[in-house]
């Protein structure tokens, strides 16, 4: 195992939204006291059903949202909220969004998307150096030859290619940690693995710490070292990925595990349904 030289940790994160309707406001407890650590070179997966607070955590880590309480610590130092320190934090912690169609501005070229973070975080570079770096990044996400892609706009790219641009953008400032919020859920099945594999490769090569957020248990298991299961804002189970998936302890994890499609159980559901209906006769009305 690679030596641990950095850690991004979430400590007792709480996020409560206020849903205002008229004069009243109701609290939405999106995240309730969640702690975990992302170590460089390792991957942590965060799974859970829709609305369980996964994206909220991602957005807190990316400083798009401030936690109601709790802290995000980078190498043990609380994260800043403004100024140069925030820029430095952003240089090191980046995010890949769910939707490659929405996360790229249709107005700007591929080069622009990758170049901006380089320029922002490395103002000392000359234009030539920036261009070289952009080319290098595009090559690294296998958008090569880079020159052919640099001037294109998002709508001229396939979904997978777009997500690669998004990844290149995340890597551009020289990120050490990447928060990937369902990075492939909007992609075609056939290209999902390509993108995930690329991310996994980069993670290895660049020694990245990755927080992989998904509701797909299968990829979570294979992609991550550690796995956290979230349910209604709480982490209900955590542990090494294989342990959690193959030997779920918490009832919710078990339910998730059950619900996930598994071709191995071919025909099982049909048989089970037939079995359950037959002895009880036609009158019995179905219940969820």
């Amino acid at each position: 195992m690679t030596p641990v030289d950095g850690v991004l940790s979430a400590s007792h994160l709480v996020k409560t939204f206020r849903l205002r309707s008229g004069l009243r406001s109701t609290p939405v407890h999106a995240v309730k006291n969640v702690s975990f650590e992302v170590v460089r070179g390792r991957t942590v997966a965060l799974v859970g059903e829709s609305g369980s607070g996964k994206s909220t955590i991602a957005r807190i880590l990316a400083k798009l949202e401030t936690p109601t309480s709790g802290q995000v610590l980078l190498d043990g130092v609380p994260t800043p909220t403004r100024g140069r320190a925030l820029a430095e934090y952003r240089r090191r912690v980046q995010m890949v969004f769910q939707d490659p169609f929405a996360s790229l501005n249709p107005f700007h070229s591929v080069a622009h998307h990758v170049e901006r973070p380089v320029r922002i975080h490395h103002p000392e570079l000359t234009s030539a150096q920036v261009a070289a770096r952009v080319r290098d990044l595009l090559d690294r996400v296998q958008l090569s030859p880079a020159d052919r892609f640099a001037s294109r706009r998002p709508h001229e790219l396939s979904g997978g290619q777009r997500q690669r641009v998004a990844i290149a953008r995340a890597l551009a400032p020289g990120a050490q940690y990447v928060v990937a919020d369902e990075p492939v859920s909007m992609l075609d099945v056939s290209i999902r693995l390509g993108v995930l594999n690329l991310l996994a490769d980069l993670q290895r090569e660049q020694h990245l710490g990755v927080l992989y957020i998904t509701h797909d248990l299968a990829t979570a298991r294979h992609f991550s070292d550690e796995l956290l299961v979230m349910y209604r804002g709480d982490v209900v189970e955590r542990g090494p990925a294989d342990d959690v998936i193959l030997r779920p302890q918490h009832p919710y994890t078990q339910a998730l595990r059950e619900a996930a499609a598994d071709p191995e159980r071919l025909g099982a559901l049909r048989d089970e349904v037939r079995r359950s209906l037959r002895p009880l006769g036609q009158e019995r009305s179905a219940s969820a």
Partner: protein
Amino acid sequence: MRELMPRWDGKLAIGVATVALITVFALVVPLLAQDPRSSANPALLPPGPGHWLGTTKLGNDVLAQLAVGTRGSLFVGVLGGLVSLVLALFFGILAGYIGGVVDEVLMLLTNINLVIPGLPLVMVIAAYVQNAPGLGSLARSSLMVALVLGVTGWAGSAVVLRAQARSLRTREYVAAARVAGEGTLRIICVEILPNLVPLIAAQLIYGVIFTVLGEAGLSYLGLGPTGSITLGTMLNDAQTGQAVGTGAWWWFVPPGTIIAALGAGLSLVNFALDEVVDPRLRQAPQAVRRQRRSRAAITREEASA
């Protein structure tokens, strides 16, 4: 950006051509025609050689007046449109992007402005402004009329822009830009505004139409600009000069026609922009036509087979 450009079609072509013609007319003809204020012609000449659109009661050449008036109206229209656009951008985009309390306050102001009926407000403000001391000749200049119309006419656009800015704000690419470290101003200007271009253009055009018509209305009510010629003041002159009663249609009809044509031309351009903002508006009818054509082709094939 291809998809941000309106698609070239008949409507747009007619619209652009109309507006372009009117603009060229307004810019070029005044250089060629005689002084629109010159009364050195016989009065109320019907159209004919020498005076293609006849003369007014004072002997002004209608063509010259029309050209200069169109220029004046365009000036008022564009200026008023710009003023209201700037205000709409300020209120709309700021409210939409920042959200929260700022949004509430700005939208309250916008909504108030929106529900207070426009012309009475313009009349009241114009009456006050035009009688305010210390403004001198500015008080009833076309500049002031444009300002008053601009200041009262932005709310509708602001609502539209806000809605769009709000939806853009929640786009992931805006969040992505923030994560990349972009500043707020740059995000608004570089990430959000360009995507609003068709919408902003549409709002500007709408503002121009609104101001041109508003100016005409104000002029008719005697609150228009004095000292400068616009289509509105021309109509007002024609109306008070009893052009209708004396049968001097050449004095009365052209300014109204130009206003209507300008408005219609701009609206047609707006159509194309609407279709950019909401492609369904173009695609749906087109699709029906294409399908019909193809169906017919298939039936023909089958029939011949």
